[in-house]
């Protein structure tokens, strides 16, 4: 359901931008996930020193930050799509707009928490 309230909350302001943002962040997240899972599989007896050394390197911190930012954008586009598809006036009646905006506000807060928390993990210690 595309109405004024729906489209004004979309990240790229139109579907094509959202589509590109979602795909671009998906590629970054996919590469990061496969890379990190592969590294973990190839490092069976992981200890603290190796783990901390990996996340101590600048390139890994940058890659993780990039993945974190991609996650924020990707999650927002995804949650926005889901909220505008399912939290509609057909499903919820007159409360739909309020419920949807509340849900989206919750998502924004969680994304913001993830971002700040992630940066603290990477550069806090």
């Amino acid at each position, binding site marked *: 359901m595309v109405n004024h309230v729906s489209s004004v909350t979309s990240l790229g302001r139109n579907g094509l931008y959202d589509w590109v943002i979602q795909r671009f962040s998906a590629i970054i997240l996919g590469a990061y996930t*496969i890379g990190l899972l592969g590294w973990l599989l190839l490092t069976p007896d992981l200890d603290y020193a190796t*783990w901390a050394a990996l996340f101590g390197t600048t390139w890994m911190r940058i890659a993780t930050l990039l993945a974190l930012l991609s996650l924020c954008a990707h*999650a927002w586009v995804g949650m926005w799509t889901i909220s505008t598809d399912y939290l509609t006036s057909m499903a919820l009646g007159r409360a739909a707009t309020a419920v949807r905006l509340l849900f989206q506000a919750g998502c924004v807060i969680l994304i913001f928490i993830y971002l700040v928390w992630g940066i603290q993990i990477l550069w806090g210690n």
Partner: protein
Amino acid sequence: MHCHLCALSRMLILYFAGLPTILAAHGLNCVTSLESWKIRHQVSAFVRTSMCRFPTVGQWFTPPCTGCRPAVQALTGIANQVLCAGLQQNRLPVKDNRPVNLDLTKFHFPLPAITSILHRITGVVLFAGTAVLLWLLSESLSSQQGFDRAQQWLDLLAVKLLVWAVLAGLLFHLIAGIRHLLMDAGIGETLQGGRNGAVLVVVLSVISIVLAGVWVW
């Protein structure tokens, strides 16, 4: 003849009851040892047998059988009431004569539709699951003590299951996402290609999720 729903739920039960049994028989800490070959063999045999229980009725998802129908009807009854309540509240006078059929038990859901909705569901699960992953990352990177604490947490069955659930969602979302990107590139875009791709996504996901379970334990 059973329906896809029975087959799926039986597979899930087998999966959650069977895998711990296999792992318990071999001990929990043998994953990195030579024993793991035996386990992998058993797991793949186990996946094969449970996948074979899938009924092959064309490409379509079968409607619920007589055994499953009451449960599905009860669930969709609630969904229908919610949806229809919304409809009635917002119905315009001109739409009064339009037939409203929202009985989800009467729809046939093709496999691509199911992988599509699972992609959305796993996306929401991952959005929440990121908290678990960030918590583990934060603990494990804080100090040697924190790293040991994270490992102690991961020894608990509930935490193992939680991490496995997040990993399972991640693997499905990743594999289905790669298929999306391939389809964006024009690969597997036909009707038959879409159906084949959906089957491939399910098979690859089940195998990798089982292997992820082996890896977590």
